[in-house]
């Protein structure tokens, strides 16, 4: 399992562990450049591996306006 915080909705999700950031984005139906993916204060590129128990913040970048 991994723990995902979605911003700006401030929504918390618990998901089965995907292998990579790209898989995680796909599962949330987000394109590679539609959100920042942050783990322990670090930005992750789509090819990075995800580990069991990871806490990840997903920050969507589209501003309303």
């Amino acid at each position: 399992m991994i723990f995902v915080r979605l911003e700006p909705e401030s929504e918390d999700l618990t998901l089965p562990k995907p292998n990579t950031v790209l898989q995680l984005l796909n599962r949330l139906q987000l394109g590679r450049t539609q959100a920042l993916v942050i783990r322990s204060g670090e930005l992750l590129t789509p090819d990075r591996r995800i580990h069991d128990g990871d806490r990840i913040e997903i920050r969507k970048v589209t501003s309303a306006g």
Partner: protein
Amino acid sequence: MKCRRCKALAAVALPSHHAGFCPDCFRKFFLKQVETAIRRKKMILPEDKILVALSGGKDSLALMEALTRLGYQPVGLHVDLKIPGSSDVARKTVEDFCSRRGLRLIVADMEEWGLPIPEVRRKVKRPICSICGKIKRHAFNRIALEQGFDVLATGHNLDDETARLFANTLRWDEAHMAGQSPSLPAENGFARKIKPLYRLSEFETAAFAFLTDIEYTTAPCPYSRGASFTAHKALLAQLEARSPGSKISFYEGFLERGRPAFQNRDSDKEQLAPCQYCGMPTSAGACGVCRVRQLLQQS
């Protein structure tokens, strides 16, 4: 993925540039894009006094940060609209950003200007966003004019610009296409208007904001009816995902080959005179914003 420049672990992947960058090289890449935009479109001359419109969102704050890092000395301008639930957060975000970085900030308080948006919304029948936009532009222009700024910079990015161009194209809105540019010359007593982030996507400005420790607000305005361009942005994002680089070539191609055709139409140039109340250039005796203010005072 490795950084294209230094081979360290990449933090940002940019499909449109077929490249990944580590945090340090990404910041350099970003600043270089801003520098290129400024140079190619002759946005800023030496000695220019620069005013940056700061909403508190990531784009305007990233712009302020980038200009400062490039050695400019921009002054921030925040328009406090007095909208419950969003204006307080926005103002505090901008004030904190500027004080932490030692940057000069001007706050235009719409309550003091006799134009608090909630009251405007109650009294004026037209859709609030168009009037609110008009009031913001009025405040920017007026502060720029009264305080002697040469340039007014806004944080519009490539996604904003392509979404707007797409909307204008769908309607073949010739007048707006003639006027859409990342650098509009000073005219009729208005300062030059520039968009130094026009080559950078929303994703890139968000990454830059994150990698320069910018705290920005995402609190939506309660009057927003789900921004009109969001659907267009989504369409363009799909196109970009399928063929990376389409957004920038759509926009740069328009600037080079599309816009000149519309500009040549020489749209009937309006005769402008100073507004009798605030002195801003207008085609009527009193400008649109002063008429709204009077309406509020009457009732």
